[in-house]
């Protein structure tokens, strides 16, 4: 059973560009959450998708948007990239009735 998979693993973008990150949840999981983790910090919640809709959102600007597909996979889009967007982006999947969230390995985004 594959766990949470994210692609790509590493990415370098130029300031002002747009980026799309992808996540496939653990088999059977219907909820996907995205987190941003800056170097030396804990992960910060961006938003969560359930039944193809954004259910919760953290304190992130509208430049951060997402989507969930019928197969529960998800994308995170970031527009007008800033240097400060450089971070490890983590995807986590879960089931409402389960205790734990399963994280992927993350996508390391570097904005230059």
């Amino acid at each position, binding site marked *: 059973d594959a766990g*949470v998979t994210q692609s790509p693993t590493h990415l370098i973008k130029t300031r002002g560009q747009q980026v799309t990150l992808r996540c496939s949840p653990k088999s059977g999981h219907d909820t996907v959450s995205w987190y941003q983790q800056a170097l030396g*910090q804990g*992960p910060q919640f961006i938003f969560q998708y359930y039944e193809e809709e954004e259910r919760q959102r953290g304190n992130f600007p509208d430049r951060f948007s997402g989507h969930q597909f019928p197969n529960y996979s998800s994308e995170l889009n970031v527009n007008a990239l800033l240097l400060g967007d450089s971070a490890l982006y*983590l995807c986590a999947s879960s089931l*409402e009735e389960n205790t*734990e969230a399963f*994280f*992927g*390995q*993350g996508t390391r985004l570097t904005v230059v």
Partner: protein
Amino acid sequence: LAKTTQPISMDSYEGQEVNITCSHNNIATNDYITWYQQFPSQGPRFIIQGYKTKVTNEVASLFIPADRKSSTLSLPRVSLSDTAVYYCLVGDDGPGFQKLVFGTGTRLLVSP
């Protein structure tokens, strides 16, 4: 969501028991306490969750006193591979704990 306070770092040696204490003075009645482990360049991994008293699994034990204002994660006989960052989280999502609020965590270094 209740704020948590943990030591920034801890050092130990192989074979020793490690106890990491987390303070959460403002924990609410519905809040659960959850611990995650994170290795460099990987996503966090669920370790254990509890509400009160003691919880034990194959990896760790979680001790929660009656007032629930603190909790202690106990790792028996640590090995070098337990070197990681450990996060204490408190929230009221309970089972299906989905919006996770991470602090800066405790960086545990296990030496030979």
